[in-house]
């Protein structure tokens, strides 16, 4: 059964500081996609945006902090 | 306004103001302008020292500003201000010790009282702040590296 889903394509790099959001999908090449997934950026994972400076960010996933460059943050789409 | 927040705001304003003014004065001194009367306070003309004190002052001012909107953030800035000032106070104390040692080795001497720069003695203010709000800062949460 398919539910109608709204297409959300907000890149993580646009999410403001302090927001808690959920990962929708990752649009990246093989290696990077896997790497991100293995670090915990899976569909449905909640993350908190601790810091955002012009696209480069520090996010908190599963209690772990990561600094992401703008390039990477823009490849992670948020619901 | 909550009294605790008020207390913190006054503290931040006070400490921030002191650091900022000392820092600016030192900065001005380093540019050549001098008023000898302020030498009482051991303010020298090291431009970087002035910069650092001013920076710490700014952190406290930020704390004051944030405290009005959201006291959690305000406390965070205040804690950071305290931490930074104690850190730099400690560093300068260490340097002072080394200078004393160097002077002793070379056979010279160093005027102790005149060398205790503001960065060191203003640290007392931060120590006070640390004591007052120790619980909120829950320092025991910091763990050991390489555990």
């Amino acid at each position: 059964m398919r539910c109608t889903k709204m297409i959300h394509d907000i890149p993580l790099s646009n999410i403001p500081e302090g927001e808690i959001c959920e990962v929708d999908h990752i649009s990246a090449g093989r290696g990077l996609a896997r790497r991100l997934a293995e670090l915990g950026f899976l569909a449905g994972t909640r993350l908190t945006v601790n810091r955002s400076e012009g696209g480069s960010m520090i996010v908190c996933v599963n209690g772990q902090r990561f600094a992401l460059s703008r390039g990477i943050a823009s490849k992670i789409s948020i619901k | 306004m909550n009294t605790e927040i008020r207390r913190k705001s006054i503290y931040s304003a006070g400490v921030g103001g002191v650091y900022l003014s000392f820092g600016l004065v030192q900065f001005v001194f380093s540019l050549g302008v001098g008023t000898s009367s302020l030498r009482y306070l051991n303010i020298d003309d090291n431009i970087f020292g002035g910069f650092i004190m001013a920076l710490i002052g700014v952190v406290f001012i930020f704390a004051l500003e944030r405290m009005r909107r959201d006291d959690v953030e305000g406390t965070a800035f205040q804690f950071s201000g305290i931490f930074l000032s104690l850190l730099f106070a400690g560093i300068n104390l260490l340097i002072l010790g080394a200078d004393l040692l160097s002077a002793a080795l070379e056979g010279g001497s160093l005027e102790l009282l005149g060398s205790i720069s503001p960065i060191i003695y203003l640290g007392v203010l931060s120590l006070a702040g640390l004591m007052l709000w120790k619980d909120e800062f829950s320092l025991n949460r910091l763990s050991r590296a390489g555990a």
Partner: protein
Amino acid sequence: MENDNITIALAGNPNVGKTTLFNSLTGTRQHVGNWPGVTVEKKVGTARHKGRDITIVDLPGTYSLSAYSLDELVTRDYIIKGRPDAVIHILDASNLERNLYLTIQLLELDVNVVLALNMYDIVKNRGDTIDVEMLSKNLGVPVVETVASTGEGIEELIDAALRLPKEGIERYRPFYGEDLEERISKVMDVLGGDDKVTPRFPRRWLAIKVLEEDKEVLKLLEGSEVEPKLKRYMDGVGQNTELELVNRRYENVRCVMSGSCKLSDGGMDPSDMLDKVVTNKYLGIPIFLAMMWAAFEMTFKVAEPFTIMIDKFFSWLMVLITENVGNGTIASLLGDGIIGGVGSVLVFVPNIFLLFLIISLLEDSGYLARAAFVMDKVMSRIGLHGKSFIPLLIGFGCSVPAIMACRSIEDNKDRIITILSTPFITCGARFPVYVLFAGAFFADSEGTVVFSMYLLSILMAIVSVILLRRFIFKGEKSPFILEIPPYRMPTMRSALLHMWDRGKMYLKKAGTIIFLGAIIIWVLASFPPGVEYGSGDSFVGMIGKVLEPLISPLGFDWKIAVALTLGFVAKEIVVGSLGTLYGTGENDDLLRDQLRNDPSMTPLTSLGVMIFTLIYVPCLATVAIIRKETNSWKWTLFSILYSMSLAWVITFVVYRVGLLLGY
């Protein structure tokens, strides 16, 4: 009494304290950093446990065992082929979910595993609870709580590891869901038909890798008879299957954790509070600058008493030798040659070691990770990675450990750019040259001149990066993911360890290359026999006269030519050889006077000498390490020629323009 040789491997995520554990066990010095990805080299040591010797292998820190990174490949290859008797998987107990992801993969490798729940004290402080017994039961492997920095739990850990080969426990087998499991068994059947590659690996693991389209596994199976059949299961399946497997693994992890873990609701802890300010848009960079300033102040001021002591010691030694050694030649060899040469290097040991100590403290505390983040924005404008900044920082002490630190930069282009630009950062060895010349010719503004040299070197490094990026390594800088650990109180012990790790390279250089260099110079300066030590008639003088034409456009004479040439071996030798050439030996003050009295030396030329020294050719040890780290003669030669030409051109310009301006 068994005398079998037991080997235990240490695996785990980066920053979990694996290397600390390794050090505690083996007592050897290793490098621990907050940066992901240490070296690809395997570190091996021997531990003594209850009367037995055990070989310990420290595998690189990895998040997973895929084929995407060299670290991971090295780790899994070792486990599969090296067949260690046991693998101790070290987990950061405060981050269990992500750490257990690796555990699941290890369990699939059919090797004996023991889990070390490290950083257990953080867990307790936070108020989380982990039911260790339950976890152990769920996974089917022994689990031991440890706090590696204090040594708690290490004994039980090794005991459990040693017991392993004998106990047969039912281990956890991840379940990937009906659909994927079905495909896994189908692939396993197909693989059964291959008898060359498949028997070497755990079959289920191999099947899973095939479905993931794991590069290395596919390469191995190329050309085998089962390859065409396998292709059926792989086409059109690719990335989705791979990510799905990752997903399912995490579900397995959560399943294992539920019932054995309860995580508390965290508030804002001190780390978060500090980060608000440290990574703040406006305050971040000023704070960083303040920290850097404090670090350098400390390096100079705190090292001073020690430097004075060492200086006094060598002077005393010199006097002792001149008074007691009868034979003039030997006295000269010992005094001028060895003590003069090596002593001038050792005098800087306090400075360099202190710098490394401070860098280690910053690293261990977690601040450097924030600094990298803060600096990243600035650095990307010139085309560099945030991670490049640590090697550049270390370069202020010595280029050799700095270039080694470049290993943590994953992208090859970024790495090479950083390696080639690091030598421009003025290292501890060049400092005496500035002090000498600035002291001689710019006595009033000595500090400012030296400081400007430092600024110039930073500028040169930046220019170098920009040029390399623009003309040779075109392309975008690679993306940046950096794990940011919580702030920690650095332990003196581990900081001293890292300091020693990097510092010993400097000492080794002093003990070997410089020692030999000093002797060679002494020989060249003392012969032909009867010649005045270091004069124009000695061999060293003759060499200088030959080289003179090459640098006279820069305003240098043959003595400088010699000193600079010898400086190719090690920059520390430059001052020492000048001392020899001007006949002043150890006495720097006398040398300064001599320099001033030399008609060919003017403030302008001395500026030229300082600039040339700053830019030209890296020392021999650095060249050797560049060759090793870039693995190519091409880049090594490039580095030499590139810095040499830049040095010549810039000094030429400065000198000629200076002359025009009437200096």
